[in-house]
C-alpha cells in the first residue's frame, strides 16, 4: 500500500467491458449466465488476458474453499466433549 500501482484500463472485447465481465463472473463460473451473455463473456475472456487470468483465479478460489476447507473434519476431542455434554445435559 505504499506506492500507487499502474493498472491496465478496462477494455471492450467481445461486446463486453472488463467491468461487465467482473460483474458476471459469479454466474459465468456457476454456468448460470444466459446463452447470449455466456457467449459474449467467452469471447471477452478469449481476447482479454487480464480477465482470463483473473477469471481463472476466481474459479480456483471458489474451488479451493470447497475442496480444501470443506474437507476439514471436527477434531476428535471436540466431538468427544460434545457427545459427553449431550449425555449429561439433555
Amino acid at each position, binding site marked *: 500500500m505504499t506506492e500507487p500501482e499502474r*493498472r*491496465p484500463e*478496462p477494455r471492450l472485447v467481445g461486446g463486453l467491458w*472488463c*467491468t461487465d465481465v*467482473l*460483474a458476471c*463472473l*459469479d454466474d459465468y463460473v456457476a454456468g448460470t449466465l444466459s446463452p447470449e451473455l455466456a457467449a459474449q463473456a467467452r469471447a471477452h475472456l478469449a481476447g482479454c488476458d*487480464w*480477465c482470463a*487470468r*483473473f477469471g*481463472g*483465479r*476466481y474459479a*480456483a*478460489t*471458489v474451488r*479451493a*474453499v*470447497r475442496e*480444501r*476447507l*470443506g474437507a*476439514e*473434519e*471436527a*477434531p476428535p476431542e*471436540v*466431538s468427544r*466433549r*460434545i*457427545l459427553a*455434554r*449431550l*449425555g449429561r*445435559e*439433555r
Partner: protein
Amino acid sequence: MLAAVAAGDTAACNELVRRHQGAVWRTCRALTASDQAAEDAMQETFLAACRGAAGWRGEGSVRAWLLGLARRQAARTWRRRKGEPVAPVPLHELGSLAGWGRMEDPEAFVEALQDRRRLWAAMDRLAPADREVIVLRDLEQLTGPEAAQALGIDLSALKSRLHRARLRLMAELQADLRHD
C-alpha cells in the same frame, strides 16, 4: 431421525452429531475464527438441536436447519466484538484489490490456495458477514434459497454478497502474498 431426536432418543441425537459434526464444526470455526469459540458454539448448536428437534418443521434439509442454528450461536460471539463498518466499495475497485490487472506471479496465488492454513487465515480476516456467506454457499454448498433463508436475506442480496465476499477473500490472499 429428527422425530426420534425430538422424542428424547439419545442414540438418535448422537447419530445427528456424528452425521453433521463436520459441517457444524467448519461453520462455527469459520464464523468465530477461533477454535475455542467454535467448540462452544458447536456444543450450543447440538444442545439446541437435540432439545429443539420438535421445532423443526420439516422444510428444507436437516443440514440447512443445523447450519442456521450454528450461525445464530456463532453470531453471539461476534456481537460482543466491535462491529466493523463496511463502506460500500465499487465492484471494479474490489476487483482491483482482488488482483485484476496484476502483473505479478500468478503461480504464487494458486499455491496459496493449496495451503489450507493460509486460506483459513485469509477467511479469518474477513468481516463476519462476508465469511458466513462463503461458508454457507461455497464451503457447505447450501443452495441459494437455503443460504438466503439461513441469513434472512433475499436471493439477489445473497448473490451480490457472495460475489463481493469472494473478491474480498481474493484480496486478502493477494495482500498476504505481498507480505512474503
